[in-house]
């Protein structure tokens, strides 16, 4: 049964950097680490989600985070999610819900039913947690509902929910007018998390250690920002395909020396490649931005397909979960919890000031415009994953808004009267449609046909472009 539902082993994606190639063993090791911890019982394991700015708190308390989105992604990348999705469906859950959550729920239900890991569980499986830390922040609803559903099979495992809001963008109002209120609320939430962890672990928080880890994270943020900005070089030394690997230390290993060292090495590698003029593709013809959407984890070789057409991806909005701290102008504080809260607010409001200055712009659109210019982008590619509602809705809107306010390509057109006219047109864009881990929504032939047509469009726009 288990074997019958497994897809053929996916082709391995070719990486441009040594750093990206080293990620597989790294992920495998931290999955193995959680399984060891479960077996030994010395360290508490917490199911949790990325982008919560709570890594320092967990690590300072010696709690081992188990990133459930990551495990679902692994199942997808190994093309072994279908049997867990079907398990969830058999519980009455719709396939149109978040497939990360469905995969995780299906896996947990199976593990709890068996009292051991499901057969041939990917990389040994997802360990049973001691507690679950969900987040009711604005990002998406499964981040609070997922673990509630899991509690049906693990009623003894408590949940702590942290709420991490940020002020919405308002064109006529400086967000700083209200962010003090948000800050007080977030600090309260994070202190609540500390209290919950102290209760669960029986240990007191070591605030000196927390301060050190916050400092390490700040330094890692700045280092990642500097490293990723190197990708603006022509030719681009590392593309989005590789960034879908390097997101691992960025999203899952923050507040560790390993993550810092990883990006130190990556930075060095990129500097070497730039000095040698080495690009992600041999003859770079087009520079594309991955403008949003989680990737299809089972089809990362599509990035290689883009590469085979001379297209490189110097930048992506997905998983770029850091911003330069020195540009945020955050209030000073010696309290590490307060600092985390300010950093959270600084990150989510990073593009607000710039967006206010451009008529009709919005923070997400402003980020696209800035990066189109900074990374010399020829076109935008997005991925509408049907089961990810949060990304899905915003992507279409972002593209529409971008096309409305930003037309950077000068071209000549011949009008009906035969006269040649110089006009400006929007950046071409491509929306790929599939899912994050549900392979039944994916067609390689159709996807690549779309990519071919998009490359032809880029070619014709270049031919028409006013020199």
């Amino acid at each position, binding site marked *: 049964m288990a074997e019958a539902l497994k897809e053929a082993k996916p082709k391995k994606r070719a990486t441009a950097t040594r750093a990206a190639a080293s990620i597989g063993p790294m992920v495998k090791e931290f999955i193995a680490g959680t399984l060891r911890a479960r077996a030994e019982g010395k360290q508490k394991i917490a199911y949790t989600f990325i982008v919560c700015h709570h890594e320092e708190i967990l690590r300072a308390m010696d709690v081992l985070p188990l990133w459930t989105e990551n495990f679902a992604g692994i199942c997808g990348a190994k093309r072994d999610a279908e049997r867990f999705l079907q398990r969830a469906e058999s519980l009455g859950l719709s396939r149109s819900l978040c497939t990360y959550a469905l995969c995780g729920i299906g896996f947990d239900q199976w593990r709890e039913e068996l009292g051991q890991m499901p057969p041939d569980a990917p990389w040994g499986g997802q360990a049973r947690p001691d507690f679950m830390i969900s987040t009711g922040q604005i990002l998406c609803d499964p981040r609070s509902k997922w673990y509630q559903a899991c509690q049906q099979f693990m009623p003894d495992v408590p949940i702590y929910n942290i709420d991490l809001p940020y002020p919405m963008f308002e064109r006529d109002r400086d967000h700083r007018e209200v962010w003090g209120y948000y800050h007080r609320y977030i600090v309260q939430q994070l202190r609540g998390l500390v209290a919950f962890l102290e209760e669960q672990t029986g240990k007191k928080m070591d605030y000196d250690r927390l301060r050190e880890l916050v400092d390490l994270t700040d330094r890692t943020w700045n280092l990642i920002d500097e490293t990723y900005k190197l990708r603006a070089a022509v030719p681009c030394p590392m593309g989005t395909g590789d960034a879908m690997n390097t997101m691992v230390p960025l999203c899952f290993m923050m507040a560790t020396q390993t993550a810092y060292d990883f990006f130190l090495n990556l930075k060095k590698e990129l500097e070497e490649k730039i000095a040698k003029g080495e690009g992600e593709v041999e003859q770079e013809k087009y520079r594309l931005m991955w403008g949003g959407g989680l990737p299809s984890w089972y089809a990362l070789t599509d990035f290689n397909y883009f590469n085979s057409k001379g297209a490189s991806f110097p930048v992506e909005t997905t998983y770029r979960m850091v911003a330069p701290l020195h540009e945020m102008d955050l209030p000073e504080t010696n309290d590490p919890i307060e600092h985390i809260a300010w950093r959270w607010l600084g990150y989510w409001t990073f593009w607000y000031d710039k967006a206010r200055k451009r008529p009709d712009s919005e923070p997400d659109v402003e980020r696209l415009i800035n990066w189109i210019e900074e990374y010399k982008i020829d076109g935008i590619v997005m991925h509408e994953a049907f089961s990810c509602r949060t990304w899905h809705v915003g992507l279409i809107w972002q593209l529409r808004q971008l096309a409305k306010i930003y037309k950077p390509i000068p071209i000549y057109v*011949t*009008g009906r009267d035969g006269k040649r006219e110089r006009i400006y047109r929007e950046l071409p864009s491509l929306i790929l449609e599939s899912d994050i881990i549900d392979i039944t929504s994916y067609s390689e*032939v159709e996807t690549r046909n779309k990519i071919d047509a998009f490359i032809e469009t880029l070619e014709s726009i270049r031919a028409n472009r006013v020199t």
Partner: protein
Amino acid sequence: MSYFAGIDIGSTMTKVVILEDGILASVIGPTGPEQRRLANQVMEEALRRSRLPFQAITYVVATGYGRINVPFADKQLTEITCHAKAVSSLFPKAKILIDIGGQDVKAIRIDPTGKVVDFVMNDKCAAGSGRFIEVICDSLGLTLDQASEISLRSEHPVALSSICTIWAQQEVASRLAEGAAVADLLAGVHRSLAERISTMVRRLKVEEEIVVTGGGGKNRGLLKALSEQLGYEVHVPEEPLITGALGAALLGREIAKEAERTKTSLSTRERVLEEIEIL
């Protein structure tokens, strides 16, 4: 005199156009599992009709899903680029083209020179493609042409709630059992498909002129429903099925002209239609 060939291997039909100043010959045949063999066959037939030896063809461009299965093609281009080229040549004022194929539907925005500005495709579900109508016609025992004409007689199209092809088939059966007129049912089917297609087209902003190509362009009932949905008249080439092949041949001519202008050699394949064993 120079001749150019375009071959379009679609999901259900294979089309070839041989171009001189205008269309010298065109052939349409059903696509089967052996696309390479079929490509040779239709090309042979087109050459026979145009009374040309294969060596007389200056450049061959292949398009469509099976474009990589054309052993004698000098270049492969997507059907999106090819349809845009042909439509712009046939309808110089066209801004939006809708290619309704057997397997998918594409909406393409083009500029006055026939270049693609933007496109969207429905490729996930048969509900938005010609296959939707084929399935319904099969269940009613009608040909596509018959269904098209009968639907035009409808005065009260039946509203179908299902967009899934299989469920719609069931819904049609149950409406028939309730006594609905076949013409009203078929008009409802066309309306349902037209709604799906126009939803997709609106993502590109609807503007005149709108041209419909592909097999869907031969269905007058569908065109009527589409025109009502979009709020504009829709135009159709004389033979909508060969639009992709025509565009391929036109682009082949452009490539050859550009090579001549820049005095670069034109890279072509050997003009041989080899025998391919049947599986």
